[in-house]
């Protein structure tokens, strides 16, 4: 069966520090991968999605970037975090016309 791993679960980082969140999927190949951000009590904002290795589409220009070095690995990064980067980051995968499966999420607080 397919599983998705996302870590860490919580993270507190100072302003200006770098960020790296990792997401891996098991049990499937060539999934569509997504990064979403959810501000407290708000909806899901699509940040990046990828249909294949090194194929990344960005939805919102910002100081975040994403990479997909392997088929089932999706990484969200920042060189310098801003206070406004705080939020709940969710990785998801989707295959074909099926539903999306979300990771447990990373709650990021930038201080």
């Amino acid at each position, binding site marked *: 069966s397919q599983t998705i791993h996302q870590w860490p679960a919580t993270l507190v980082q100072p302003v200006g520090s770098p960020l790296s969140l990792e997401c891996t999927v098991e049990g499937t190949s060539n999934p569509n991968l*997504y990064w979403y951000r959810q501000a407290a009590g708000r909806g*899901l904002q699509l940040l990046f*999605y990828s249909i294949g290795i090194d194929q990344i589409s960005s939805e919102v220009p910002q100081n975040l970037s994403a990479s997909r070095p392997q088929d089932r690995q999706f990484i969200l990064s920042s060189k310098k975090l801003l206070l406004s980067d705080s939020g709940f980051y969710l990785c998801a995968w*989707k295959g074909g016309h099926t*539903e999306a499966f979300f990771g*447990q999420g990373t709650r990021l607080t930038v201080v």
Partner: protein
Amino acid sequence: GQQVMQIPQYQHVQEGEDFTTYCNSSTTLSNIQWYKQRPGGHPVFLIQLVKSGEVKKQKRLTFQFGEAKKNSSLHITATQTTDVGTYFCAGPRWGEIIFGKGTRLHILP
């Protein structure tokens, strides 16, 4: 670009009352999906509707897809405390999944 709008943003109901959330897309959708996110959790898939006018039921939950495939609704009959959470509709756009802003359901005891 394509937008998926959802109303209401919040809904407070007494336990046992019914609840409905509505979803509207600016464009025709090939399908629509519904997800539930419990407080502190991640979104979990509930159902997918594909056909025009489709109606699906899951126990106390009834999902409808409009005839024009541009709107959808989720109706919960006789809400229970376990229904608390945020309900999202989502539509496909090329390789993306576009979510509505969600309806947060609060149950008053």
